[in-house]
């Protein structure tokens, strides 16, 4: 669980410090205020620390995730930073783990100035990029795909996610459901939400099996007592190519697959980071998405997401239930008009989000209608 992230002279940020909720964090801001960069910085810091000092090559991870010009580390120093001045990343995690690193515009390798992961227990994060990945999975994981080409087409977040998806299930699904009721509840609810489940077959072939979990009465082994058992009931002969499923459903399907293979391990995973989950998602699916994310957070999963979407934001405001321990923290990124610096305001209160780029977009619509239909009346 990442608790704090500080960025100095890094990417778009002059100086930015953010305190994360251990539950749900929603980042908003206009285009160009660095939402994705903030997500990626949190991802790289979490990933590097989880892999351990020896294994991690932070320079490569940073470059493959951010893809600066010429894959040159120095290009990640904020434009306008005086030569020789350092770009700095400082990240702190829930159990005292900490990573601090710095580099200059001429650095070839990042310098780790602090690296504490003595308590261990920090697991790798998951980054869900803007584009839906299930449809890319076959191409990215195929042995026939040219690796340098893949690396030139996709940043590390796409490749890492496909790698996570390709991990085999450690135990049978039924056993996982039996052994871990919390997992069973979240998983079954998600499958019923998308009305089926995705399957990753041989050679990266992905299919969608429509169906739902239903309670069925079953006799015990001695045929003496009946008890109820929740089982997946497929709709016969309805299996379709994953490509035929709606894109928004495929996005939720990623969560289903990651839960299944325990890469998304409730209470045990690193942070789940999601960049604009609303992209290509039917607004009617948004409520289901938010309910799913709240359910994950209630079961110990830290989530950080960036959004442009009012509907998503408002569903969080409406569905978050303090009685169930929900906590949603809103972080607004904005450009200070005086000095051009990107700044951050955080609040727990949806109505107190300032500035709110999403609401501002609606206000712009209002202004334009007044301008075009009423001219100077009232001005």
């Amino acid at each position, binding site marked *: 669980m990442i608790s704090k992230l500080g960025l100095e002279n890094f990417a778009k940020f002059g100086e930015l410090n953010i305190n994360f909720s251990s539950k749900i964090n929603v980042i908003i801001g206009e285009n160009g205020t660095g939402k994705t960069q903030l997500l990626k910085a949190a991802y790289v810091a979490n990933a590097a620390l989880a892999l351990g000092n020896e294994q991690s090559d932070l320079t490569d991870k940073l470059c493959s995730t951010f893809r600066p010009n010429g894959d040159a580390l120095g290009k990640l120093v904020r434009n306008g930073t005086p030569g020789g001045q350092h770009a700095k990343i400082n990240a702190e995690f829930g159990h005292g783990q900490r990573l601090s690193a710095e580099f200059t515009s001429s650095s070839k390798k990042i310098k780790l100035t602090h690296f504490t992961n003595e308590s261990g227990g920090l697991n790798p994060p998951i980054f869900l990029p803007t584009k839906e990945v299930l449809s890319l999975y076959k191409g990215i994981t195929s042995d026939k795909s040219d690796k340098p080409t893949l690396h030139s087409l996709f940043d590390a977040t796409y490749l890492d996610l496909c790698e996570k998806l390709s991990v085999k299930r450690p135990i049978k699904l039924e056993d996982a459901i039996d052994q871990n009721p919390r997992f069973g509840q979240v998983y079954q609810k998600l499958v019923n939400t998308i009305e089926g489940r995705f399957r990753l077959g041989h050679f990266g072939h992905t299919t969608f099996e429509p169906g739902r979990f239903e309670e069925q009465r079953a006799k015990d082994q001695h045929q003496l007592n009946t008890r109820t058992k929740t089982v997946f009931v497929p709709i016969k002969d309805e299996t379709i190519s994953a490509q035929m499923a709606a894109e928004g459903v495929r996005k939720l399907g990623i969560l289903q697959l990651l839960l299944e293979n325990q890469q998304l391990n409730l209470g045990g995973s690193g942070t789940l980071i999601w960049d604009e989950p609303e992209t290509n998602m039917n607004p009617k699916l948004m409520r289901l998405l938010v309910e799913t994310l709240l359910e994950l957070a209630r079961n110990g999963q830290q989530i950080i997401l960036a959004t442009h979407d009012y509907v998503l934001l408002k569903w969080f405001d409406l569905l978050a239930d303090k009685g169930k321990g929900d906590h949603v923290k809103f972080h607004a990124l904005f450009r200070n008009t005086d000095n051009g610096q990107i700044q951050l305001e955080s609040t727990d209160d949806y*109505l107190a989000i300032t500035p709110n780029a999403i609401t501002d977009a609606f206000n712009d619509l*209002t202004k334009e*209608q*007044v301008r075009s239909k009423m001219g100077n009346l*009232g001005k």
Partner: protein
Amino acid sequence: MTTLRESDLQIDFTNAVGGFVFDQMKSTLPNFHGIAGMHRVDFLVEFEEAIVFVEVKDPGNPKAQAKGLASFHADLNDGTLSSTFASKFIDSFVYRWAEDRVGKPIHYLSLVTLEAPFLVNLADEIARKLPPQGKPVARWQRSFLENCQVFNIETWNDNFPKWPVTRLSSLTTPAVPTGI
């Protein structure tokens, strides 16, 4: 200047040439409407170049009661609110037409204390229910209305600096008496 008040909200139309509470159902007061069966907007305000019909709804009133809010949100959700707003404009227009007082372009502006994104949606919903329901009618020679929009206090004040809205309960000094 014309100052009009609906409960906790007061609007100063600083450049108006006239205006009054249209929804006046007390027979002893000036501008008594007199037809309970017709829907009525709250205010009519006249300017040199246009007439503005104003409807005010204040779910954001700090003293709003839970029951009233529940009813408001139910009406908002099932489309009753937009239908009522549309009826208020149509009936008020008919009334003023019968008075022969619709000689200028008309704007229908509502002040509803909701969050900004709801306003755009509500305005579109009302406009769709007003003749000619978004359809082009070649035979019409003039517009029924020029603009139908919904504002909250912030967007109203932002767009109409000459017509400031004040929430009276937020004032530290005693409120200005209701005037027309």
